C-alpha cells in the first residue's frame, strides 16, 4: 500500500471514529430529552453522524481491502485502536454539557467540511458535500440552544458556563496536525486543521458572547485521541456499544 493510500485509510478511520463516537453519545439522549421534540431532534443528529461514520468506514474498508467491513471498524477495535478526538467521547453530562460539546463540534465541522469538499479524493469530497448540509442544521440547533441556555435563567447560565469551562481544554487537539495529516494536506487530500483554529475561535467566541458566556483562557489542554490515548470514558462507551457484536463472533445482523 502506498504511503498516501495508507494515510488516507488512517484519515478516513479517524473521521469515521469521530462520527460514530459522537453519534453514539447523542443517541444516549433518546427518551431522556427535556421534551418530545428534542428526542426527535437528537435522533436526527445522531442518525446523521452514524450515517457519516458508515460512509467513512466503508471507504476505509475499501482502501484496506482486507475483508473488513464498516462494522469491523466500529465493533472490533478497542479504545486503544480508536482514533477519535477526545471531545467526542466525553460523557453526555447534563443537557447544557451535551449542547456545548455539540456547538464546539458543529462549528468545527462548519470550518472543516468546506475544506474537505476541496479534497482531490473524490470519496472524501462527496462525503463532505453531504455532511455540509447536515451540519448547517446541526449548528443552527446547537447555536440556538447555547444562546437560550446561556441567556436563560441563572441556573441554565451557570450550567452552560460550567460546561464551556469543562470542555474547553478538549478543543485544542482538534487543530493538531501529525505526519499523516500533514502528508495528506500537502497532497490536497486532507485538511490542514492547524489553519482552522482562528475561524473556529471567532465563531465560537461570537456565539458564546451573545449567550453571555465567558470564553475561557487556554489554561490547560488534554490531547491524545488521534494516537489512541483516550480518557477513561471511551472504554465504557465501547463496552456497551460492542457487547452484542463481540459476544457473537462472526455473525451477520
Amino acid at each position, binding site marked *: 500500500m502506498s504511503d498516501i493510500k495508507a494515510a488516507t485509510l488512517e484519515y478516513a478511520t479517524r473521521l469515521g471514529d469521530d462520527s460514530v463516537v459522537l453519534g453514539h453519545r447523542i443517541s444516549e439522549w433518546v427518551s431522556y430529552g427535556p421534551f418530545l421534540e428534542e428526542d426527535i431532534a437528537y435522533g436526527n443528529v445522531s442518525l446523521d453522524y452514524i*450515517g457519516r461514520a458508515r460512509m467513512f468506514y466503508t471507504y476505509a474498508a475499501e482502501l484496506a481491502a482486507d475483508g473488513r467491513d464498516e462494522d469491523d471498524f466500529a465493533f472490533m477495535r478497542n479504545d486503544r485502536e480508536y482514533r477519535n478526538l477526545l471531545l467526542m467521547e466525553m460523557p453526555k453530562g447534563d443537557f447544557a454539557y451535551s449542547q456545548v460539546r455539540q456547538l464546539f463540534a458543529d462549528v468545527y465541522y462548519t470550518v472543516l467540511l468546506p475544506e474537505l469538499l476541496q479534497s482531490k479524493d473524490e470519496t472524501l469530497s462527496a462525503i463532505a458535500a453531504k455532511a455540509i448540509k447536515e451540519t448547517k442544521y446541526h449548528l443552527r440547533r446547537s447555536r440556538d440552544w447555547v444562546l437560550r441556555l446561556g441567556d*436563560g435563567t441563572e*441556573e441554565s447560565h451557570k450550567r452552560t458556563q460550567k460546561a464551556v469551562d469543562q470542555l474547553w481544554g478538549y478543543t485544542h487537539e482538534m487543530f493538531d496536525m501529525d505526519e499523516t495529516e500533514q502528508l495528506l494536506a500537502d497532497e490536497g487530500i486532507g485538511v490542514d486543521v492547524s489553519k482552522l483554529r482562528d475561524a473556529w475561535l471567532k465563531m465560537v467566541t461570537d456565539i458564546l458572547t451573545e449567550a453571555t458566556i465567558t470564553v475561557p483562557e487556554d489554561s490547560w489542554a488534554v490531547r491524545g485521541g488521534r494516537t489512541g490515548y483516550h480518557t477513561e470514558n471511551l472504554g465504557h462507551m465501547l463496552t456497551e456499544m460492542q457487547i452484542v457484536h463481540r459476544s457473537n463472533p462472526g455473525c451477520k*445482523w
Partner: protein
Amino acid sequence: MTPQEEQFWAKIEAEEKIEPKDWMPDDYRKNLIRQISQHAHSEVIGMQPEGNWITRAPSLRRKAVLLSKVQDEAGHGLYLYSACETLGISRSEMIEQLQTGKAKYSSIFNYPTLTWADVGAIGWLVDGAAIVNQVSLQRTSYGPYSRGMIRICKEESFHQRQGYEAILALAKGSPDQKAMAQDALDRFYWPALMMFGPHDSESAHSQKSMQWKIKRETNDDLRQKFVDQTVKQIEVLGLEHPDKAIKWNEERGHYDSSDLNWDEFWSVINGNGHCNRQRIEHHVAAHDEGEWVRDAISAYNEKKRAKKAQNAA
C-alpha cells in the same frame, strides 16, 4: 334528540368525519381523549423498551434503523398529542395523567426487552398488531384521529417490515442467533395478542365506541386477523409457533388457537409487569431533569419579548 345530536349522528351514519369545531357528545369527547391519549402515551413509553438497545445494536445499519424507528415513535406521539389537543386537553395535562397513572399506555411496554432479538420481535409483532388495529382506525369517525392513523400506518408498516427482517437475519443466522429469535417470539407472541384487549364480551368500552365509530372492528375480529397473518410469517422464519394448538379451520376460514392467559394480562396491567414502575419512573426522571431547560427557554423568550417591546416603544 336535540338538533345538534341529530346532526352528529347523521354525520356518523354517513361516514362523514367529526371535526374539532363540530358539536359532539361529552362522552364521545371523553372516550376519544382516553383512546387517543392512551395511544399517544403508548408511542412515547414505547420508545423505552427499544431505546434500551440503541446503544447496543450489533451493527451500524441496525443502529441507524433502530434510531430512526424510535424517532418515528416520538413523532407519532407528538402527532397524536396534537390530535388530542383538538379535543380541549393540553399536552402537559396529558403528561400529568400519564405520570400519575390516571391515563394508561399499552401494557405491552411493561414487558422487558432482554435481548437484541426483542427489538426485532417488537417491530414485527407489536407494531404488527398495532397496524391491524390502526388500519381499522383509519376509518374512525373523528377527523384528526383518522388522518393521524393514515399517516402513522404508513410508517408502522415500514417498521414492521424492518422488524421482521431483523428477526429473519437472526432466524437464518447462527444457532445462538436463532435461539435468540425463538425466545423473543415465545415471549412477545402472547402479549402481542393481548394488545387487542379483552374478549368482546368483556370489553368495557367497546360497544359504545363501535356505535360512535371511534372503533370500527371488535377486539376478537382484529385479533383473529393478526393470528392468521402471523402463522405464515413464522413458517418463513423456520421458527416454532409458540401456540401448539394453532390449526387451520376450513369452515371458519381462520386459524383456531389456544385460549389466552387473561390472568397474566390483568396481572401485568395491575402492576406485576417487570417494567410498570420503571417506565413511569424513567419518564418522570427525564421530565423532571428537563425542567430547568424548559424554564431557560421561557426566560429567554421573555427577555427577547421584553427587548422587542422596548425597542418598539
